[in-house]
Structure formats: structure tokens, C-alpha cells
């Protein structure tokens, strides 16, 4: 029976699952659109992984990351729950051991992570604006009626650059519409968008940061060759896009799980059968104090298994769910 680790990254736009063997080879990877239903997406993901792997596989460790990491952890019984910045850093170090800069652009978040001598040394994450993230590109691709997969290729065909404001998603969109109405080429506009996104990223997250080579570009948006080219032009060095760029968070979660299980010697994994369980969430506003916390109750097969969202612990302590592990 083959032993392997499971890494789960529940993000705002995609839910990714990676299966890794003990030699750190990737056996399976899945990229599923979350579409606002993380529970459904994860169930579907587990079902697919289960079918693809067949019978002779034993999961000996599970890690979760991404904005839905807590939820995923309660669903599958994770050994380690880790923030996505660390997970991305670990995965990048695994691919390129001397990596110094990570550009990560996902659905809702974009981050820059600087590494020195194999540790995360500095990072920044977009704060108040979603301009320059995957969702924004998705929306523009949809508006132009171009599949997102072809978006980057089209940008490469552009001969002249059309400048598009990159400061804010709303400004960028109206600027783009105005340029379209002037009759500019579609390729040129798409190229302008790619450049606007890269410019916005470097001005916002990259400001004051010492971007040193090797630079890795990962996250869903890394598949976009137009943006990669824009970054290469602006930074002035080659940018590496790792082979599994869109599931790096999940790879990081696998590696973290491997470390954790080595320490504890056992896994908390509930098994793939949970894909057949029914999950149900209810939420209510607690009226015990002025905080009015939105408390979430999580049920598996009609049984309450976890609660969270309360500040005081009145509800969550009843069940004492696994505490998120730190540092």
C-alpha cells in the first residue's frame, strides 16, 4: 500500500487538492472552482481524488491552508492548519531552494514574499483593493468574452501598448471601456491590462521591497503568460513559473503535514469516506452581549462537530475544536 500526504488549499476562487508520496513526488493535483461553496468544492475534490487514487493508497498526513483552512480542517481532520503565506513560502523553497522572491497572485489576494537564506524574511499582502487579482482578470475576460486561459496568449500578440489605469479595479475598468470605445485593438487592450496589473502590483506590494532573483511567480494568475512577460519587463529578470504554479499552497500544506506527522507519529485524517457524509452549517447571531458575534455551527451527518465565530468562547468551547497551530 502506497503511503501519501494530502494537501488542501481552500481559497476564495479555487479549492486545490494535492496528493504527494513520501518521496515528495506529486501523484495527483486538482484545481476546482470554489464558487462560494467551499464545502461542496472540497467534497467534490475528495471524491475525485478517491476515485483517481484507487484502493491501494493510505493517507498518512493532511494539511490545510487558504482562507477556508479552518473549515477544511474540521471537515477532513487535518494534522496541520497553516496560513497561506507560510504554505506558499515552503512550497516555493521546495521547487527552487535558493528562491529570493515569490510573486503570488490568487483569486482575491496577491502577495509578495521575500526569502533570505531559506526563511521568510518579509512579506506584504494587498490590503484594501482587489485590483490586480485573479477575480478582476476573470471579470474582464468574461466582459470581453474571451476564455481566461487564452487571455495571456492574446496579450503577447499585441504590437502597441494601450495604457490602462491600474490604481483601482473600478478605474481600470472604466479606463478600459473608454479605450475600447476609441476603437483600440483587443490584443493591445489586453496587453495594457496585463501591464496595469503588474504595475499596480509592483507599486503597491513591491514598493520599497528589494526584489532579488531568483523570482518565482505562482498562484492561479501565473498561468497568464502576458502578465509574466509584463513582470519580466518591469523587474528586468527572468521569472520562473513552477510546473504546479496553481496549486503551490496545497503543495506547501503537504510538506507541512509531512513534518507534523513525523513529529506526532499519527494522523487525524477521517478518511475519504467523509466525501459521502453530508455537511450542514447553521449560523446565528449570539445575543449574550454587545459583540453580537456571528456564530457558525458545523454539522456532519446531522451531528454538531464544531462551532466558531464567537469572541468569548461561550459556544466554541463546548466542543473544543482543534486549535490552530502556530509557529
Amino acid at each position, binding site marked *: 500500500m502506497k503511503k501519501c500526504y494530502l494537501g488542501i488549499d481552500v481559497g476564495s476562487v479555487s479549492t486545490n487538492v494535492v496528493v504527494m508520496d513520501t518521496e515528495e513526488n506529486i501523484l495527483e493535483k486538482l484545481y476546482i472552482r470554489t464558487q462560494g461553496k467551499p464545502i461542496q468544492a472540497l467534497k467534490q475534490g475528495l471524491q475525485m481524488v478517491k476515485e483517481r487514487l484507487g484502493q491501494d493508497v493510505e493517507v498518512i498526513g493532511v494539511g490545510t491552508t487558504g482562507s477556508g483552512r479552518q473549515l477544511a480542517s474540521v471537515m477532513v481532520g487535518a494534522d496541520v492548519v497553516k496560513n497561506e503565506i507560510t504554505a506558499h513560502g515552503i512550497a516555493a523553497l521546495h521547487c527552487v531552494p535558493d528562491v529570493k522572491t515569490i510573486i503570488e497572485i490568487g483569486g482575491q489576494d496577491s502577495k509578495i514574499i521575500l526569502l533570505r537564506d531559506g526563511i*521568510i524574511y518579509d512579506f*506584504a499582502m494587498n490590503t484594501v483593493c482587489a485590483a490586480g487579482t485573479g477575480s478582476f482578470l476573470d471579470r474582464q475576460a468574461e466582459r470581453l468574452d474571451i476564455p481566461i486561459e487564452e487571455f495571456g496568449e492574446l496579450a503577447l500578440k499585441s504590437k502597441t501598448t494601450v495604457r490602462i489605469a491600474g490604481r483601482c479595479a473600478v478605474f481600470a475598468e472604466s479606463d478600459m471601456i473608454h479605450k475600447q470605445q476609441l476603437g483600440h485593438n483587443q490584443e493591445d487592450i489586453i496587453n495594457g491590462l496585463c501591464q496595469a496589473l503588474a504595475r499596480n502590483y509592483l507599486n503597491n506590494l513591491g514598493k520599497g521591497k528589494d526584489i532579488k532573483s531568483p523570482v518565482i511567480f505562482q498562484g492561479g494568475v501565473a498561468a497568464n503568460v502576458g502578465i509574466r512577460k509584463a513582470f519580466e519587463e518591469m523587474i528586468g529578470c527572468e521569472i520562473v513559473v513552477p510546473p504546479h504554479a496553481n496549486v503551490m499552497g496545497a503543495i506547501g500544506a503537504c510538506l507541512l503535514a509531512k513534518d507534523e506527522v513525523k513529529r506526532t507519529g499519527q494522523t487525524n485524517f477521517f478518511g475519504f469516506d467523509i466525501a459521502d457524509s453530508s455537511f450542514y452549517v447553521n449560523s446565528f447571531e449570539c445575543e449574550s452581549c454587545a459583540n453580537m458575534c456571528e456564530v457558525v455551527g458545523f454539522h456532519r451527518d446531522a451531528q454538531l462537530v464544531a462551532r466558531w465565530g464567537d469572541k468569548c*468562547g461561550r459556544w466554541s468551547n463546548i466542543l473544543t475544536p482543534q486549535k490552530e497551530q502556530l509557529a
Partner: protein
Amino acid sequence: MKISFPHMGNVYIALKAVFEDLGVTVIPPPKSSKRTLELGTRHSPEQICIPFKITLGNYMESINQGADTLFMWGGCDACRISYYHMLQEEILKELGYDIEMICGEPFKSFGEIINFLQKLKRVAGDNHYGKIGASFVKAVKILNEIDDLDELFCKVRPREIESGETDSLYRAFEEGIKQIHGSSKTLQWVQEIKNKLESISVDPHRRVIKVGIVGEIYTVVEPFINLNIIQKLGNMGVEVHRSVMASEFIREQLDFLPFVRSEKEEVHRAAAPYIDLEIGGHARHTVGNAVRYHEENYDGVIHLLPFTCMPEIVAQSILRSVEEEKDIPILKLVLDEMTGETGYQTRLEAFIELLWRRREKTHEEVLSWN
């Protein structure tokens, strides 16, 4: 007359006690909540900062509970907050509330203190000036005591042996305040809690990360706005220190008096190589205190600012040089009306983890030199 005031961390405790001493009926606003935010946002200008929205919401909730006189502080140097009370008064009157707004101006000279006491006299008509003056002194004392208590909480929380003990004592502290009236009872209660806090069993040898908080005062001291960052960090094993607090803010105003000492000059000295003038708000303090945290060997600094806050935006661009020259990590958190905490949690966790790794790294280097 029923008086109320907006929330700003624990300042309400001092204001409540002192107005009660003066025999005025006090209606403290309900603790800031989503409802406060909802009310405040609905009636505020769209581009205004979050402190405006929350304080407006506080007023509306207090008025609904019967308050008719509102006390607000303003005029703190050149930030927008100096005219918030006028704008808020206009908004409340337009909404049909019949209220009186009393604004506390800064008191950087005897003249200004007298001016302030005269305003208090309008509220506490039956009391003579001696009593009002004494109450003012008491208010400052309570503020100092409470900020000291809060600082002690920050030291105990990351070292507690039984997790959650510190937080439940804090809840007991807040519950108790609701039941008691007047300054002497309040001071007694603070002392009682302090004794209990000191008897919580802690692990004095536990390794903790030390983080200093700088930024705009309202976002630093109001837990509802900063998503309870002090408590969150404490429970992650971090000892937190806040550089701007209500008591220090007042000490800095009163330090022309011979017996009041503030850290103002220290802060200005530390900030001088980067910013050597007052540009409003707390910008100079933000920079100066970040430098001081570096001097005191803190592991990192967190900069809190409300979205659209001009002085802090200036400070933020200066902090990049501080971060680089002093080699101290600084995490910036912009706060507005978001109540989804996941994003902040992620940033905080990653930041603390980074601080641990950096500390281990320097530790290794020190060892290898020997």
C-alpha cells in the same frame, strides 16, 4: 440632563466615573458592535474614516437610550477629527435629534484647562469649580490606572499557564464596571482586578515574541475597530505594547505642568531623522515610536491606520525607510468597516511566524560567532 460620549477603548470608564462623581446621569454607549457600525455608516459621509462612523453610531445608540447631551473631544492638532464634532452635530440635528454637543478642546496651557473646566461646569452646573477641578484630576488618574492595568494584561496573557484565564478575568473586569459608580469605587475595582491578575499563574521563562503597536490612536485603542488585535496577539504568545494610549495622549497635553511627565520629547528625538515636524494626527509618533521599539529590541512593529487617514499614510511611506534602515519588520494593517477577520488573521499569523523564524536565525548566527 443625561450625558453620553463615544467609545474609545477604555476611556469610557474614566468619563463615566467622573461624571457620576459630579452627580450627572451618565448613559455610556453600548459597546461598539455591528449595529453601531451599521447606524454610523448609514449616516456618515462615504469617504470619512472609520472612527467618525463608529462614534456617530455610538451617539445614536446612546440617544436611543435617552441621552440628550453629548461629550466629544476635538481639536487634537491638524487632523480631521478636530471638526468631527461639528459635522456630527449637524448630522444628528438633521436626523431630528434634539441634543447638545459639548466639545473638549486640547488643554496645553492653563487658559485651555480653565476653558475646559468651564465647559464641564455647563454639564455639572450645581458643582463649584473646586470640585470640578478635582474630578478632572481624578479622571486623569483613572485613565492612568486603567492603561497600566491594560499593559499588565498584555504581559500576563502570553505567559498564562491555563489558556483563557486572562481573557475571562478581563470579561469579569468589564462586567464589574457596569455595576459600579463613581471614581473611588472604580479605582478600587481596578486595584482588585490588578491583584487577581497578578495571582494568575504564569510561566516566567516562556519565550514570547515582543511586538509594538503604532498608528492612529483610535484604531490602536478601540478593540472593535482593530478586531481585538491585542487579545488575538496575546493568545498567539505575543507580548504586545501599545505606543499611543489615552493616558499618554493626555500627559502629552499636560506636560507643561511641572509634575506631569510625558514621553513626547523622546518620541520627537527618535522621529527626528525621518520627520522633524508636526504634520497632524499621530504621524510623528508613529515614526518615532517605531524607531523606539527598534531601540528597545522588539521583534516587530504593527502599524494600524484607518482607511483614508492622511497623517498615517504619510507615516506609512516613511516607515518603509525605518524598516529598511533599522532592519525591523513592520506590518501595516488598514482598518475600515470589514468585520470578516480571516484576512487579518492570516496576516497576523504569517507575521508572527516570520518574527519567530527571524529570531531563531539571529540566535543561530550569534551562536556560530562564539
